[in-house]
């Protein structure tokens, strides 16, 4: 059975009076692959650094196996970290980088003649050699021992960083956006590689990323964060199919989010029309957010449709077309393999399991409208997102001139 390893209790973190982490409660199980997912500034890296021991939370407790660890420095914790830009030691070769942690003698408390004494424990040379070579084999870098770090490609450096952390046999491996600096192809390869290593070693991975695809592909559990708070915890399927609020729905994949009213269990109204759905447990006539995933929408001839709209833009994406359709002034994104030209009026049909209902939240009305759709939306990573939102209005004005 999975056992709880680390627990954060009411952890808050403030830098210069600015709250970065707001009353976080979270536990991490043995040998699970958990991902902290969110835009930058959401507190995910801060959470990781608290677990690693690089910063102490302003308030709250960090528990390892039920023992308070707040003030234990990083070098005495049984966790190891893979850093964002690897942070390999440039003056050492591959072997020495991996051996680094083993060569540092750990001080351990031992009982000598009934007295507790701090004893330096050194690992014998031969064991170091064996463990390093073993670990290089795990990360598929056999034969690279004598290479210099600057002679390695990004992907190889990545593997050295993983080997360097894992060779110390930590209970938990922390990974801070480890694939961020790699190109797309290599990133996909490393995703499955990381998953394989995690299963082979049987230890807990805590993985920080802002890439939702990466999170969905690798994780057992995803923790979606924003503004220092946990928005949702669940399996990848849960998070994708049953997002808790507009933020999660928008951050994980693409979503059309509409205002609706829940009439009774299994009946929701939007666009002045009642639809059947699979959700229940809402108050009668409760205003809700309705999520419809762009790939779930079926396009039919306009006479047969439950709703009718006009195509305003089509973008070819390889597997499908991103089609923007105007329904009474509200623009939806529909992903379809059939081509419908701009100006065509189409009908759509929504099945009950295409519709997902969420309670209203602070994020309602902020996401899910594709009126300002542009091709860049996918490249819009979290760093530029804030800027885009601020500049968005002025830029649109510019176009109209």
């Amino acid at each position, binding site marked *: 059975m999975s056992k709880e390893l680390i627990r954060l209790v009411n952890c808050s973190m403030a830098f210069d009076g600015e709250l970065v982490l707001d009353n976080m409660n979270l536990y991490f199980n043995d040998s699970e692959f958990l991902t902290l997912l969110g835009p930058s500034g959401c507190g995910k890296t801060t959470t990781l650094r608290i677990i690693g021991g690089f910063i102490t939370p302003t308030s709250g407790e960090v528990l390892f196996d039920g023992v308070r660890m707040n003030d234990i420095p990083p*070098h005495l914790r049984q*966790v190891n*970290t893979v850093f964002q*830009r690897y942070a*390999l030691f440039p003056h050492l070769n591959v072997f020495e980088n991996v051996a680094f*942690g083993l060569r540092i003698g750990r001080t351990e408390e031992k009982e000598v003649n009934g007295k507790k004494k701090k004893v330096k424990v050194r690992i014998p040379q031969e064991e170091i050699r064996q463990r390093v070579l073993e670990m290089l084999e795990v990360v598929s870098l056999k034969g690279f021992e004598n290479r210099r770090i600057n002679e390695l490609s990004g992907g190889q450096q990545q593997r050295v960083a993983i080997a360097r952390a894992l060779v*110390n046999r930590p209970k938990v491996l922390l990974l801070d956006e480890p694939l961020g600096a790699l190109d797309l192809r290599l990133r996909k390869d490393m995703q499955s590689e990381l998953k394989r290593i995690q299963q082979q070693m049987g230890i807990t991975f805590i993985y920080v990323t802002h890439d939702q695809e990466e999170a969905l592909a690798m994780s057992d559990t995803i923790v979606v964060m924003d503004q220092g708070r946990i928005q949702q915890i669940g399996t990848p399927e849960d998070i994708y199919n049953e997002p808790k609020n507009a933020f999660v729905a928008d951050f994980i994949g693409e979503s059309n989010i509409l205002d609706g009213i829940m009439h009774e269990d299994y009946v929701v109204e939007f666009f002045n029309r009642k639809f059947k759905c699979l959700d229940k447990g809402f108050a009668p006539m409760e205003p809700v957010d309705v999520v419809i995933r762009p790939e779930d929408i079926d396009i039919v001839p306009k006479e047969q449709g439950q709703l009718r709209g006009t195509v305003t833009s089509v973008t070819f994406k390889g597997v499908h077309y991103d089609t923007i359709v105007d329904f009474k002034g509200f623009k939806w994104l529909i992903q379809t393999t059939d081509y419908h030209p701009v100006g065509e009026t189409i009908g759509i049909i929504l099945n009950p399991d295409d519709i997902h209902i969420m309670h209203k939240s602070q994020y309602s009305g902020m996401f899910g409208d594709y009126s300002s759709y542009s091709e860049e939306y996918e490249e819009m990573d979290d760093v530029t997102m804030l800027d885009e939102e601020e500049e968005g209005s002025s830029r649109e004005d510019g176009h109209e001139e």
Partner: protein
Amino acid sequence: MKKQRRTGSRVFMALVFLFLYAPIFLMIIFSFNAGNSSVVWQGFSLHWYEELFQDRTIMRSFYTTILVSLLATVIATIAGTFAAVGFYSMRRRTRSALMTVNNIPMTNADIVTGVSLCLLFVTVFGGWNYLAENYRFTFNWLGTLYRLTLPKLSLGFGTMLIAHITFNIPYVILSVGPKLRQMDRNLVDAAQDLGCTWMQAFFKVILPEIKPGIISGALIAFTMSVDDFVISYFTAGSSVSTLAMEIYSMARRRISPEINAISSLLFVVVILLLTANNIREARAEKALAKRRY
């Protein structure tokens, strides 16, 4: 017309170099002059260099220079390196304020530094010596009465060493600081993550990374020390003198070709040190460029 301008600028450049280097070359040439004159060439000879190495005052001041420069360099390099590490871990605003304070002594006129250090030593020592003269400390330990006399202090090798350390530290900080900022901040975290205490991380990771900066800082400090006249002059007192001070006092007595010889040697040493430092820095840059490919 374009050609004319080019010749014009070339002539100008030639003049600049002439005024900069002609005196030095003249000095070096005449240091090999056989005769006593500094104007008329009387044949090649190493006579003045022989004279130089037999002159006991000059040799003593030479040893003083080397000793004070080496000691000042070692101490200033250690202190400056740790200061740079301290600056590095400060907030940006505090750091830039302190860096300005650090830079002032370098742009400050030597004479001001020299006079103010001299004043400081004289004032502090004056107070100390007053205490030493007027108070005798006696105490009883294990039945024996001990009398403690404070030693009198005066300007000398010690004060000069302190002065040299003081004006060398900013140069070390200035050359170590950029190396620290170039370093990946996560390296220290990574070392600690792998079991290092902060001190172990410093010696195993930070030090190898900033070594080039430390070496060039030390070289600059040594050059500045060997080269310094004004500050030494004000802080050395009357009992010790450095090579630069010795040359100055010789020149005041009479212009001897010996001065040419010793100045030439000093010039060559400083040039060698600077060249060595430049070559090293160029190489380091090349290596860095390679690392980033």
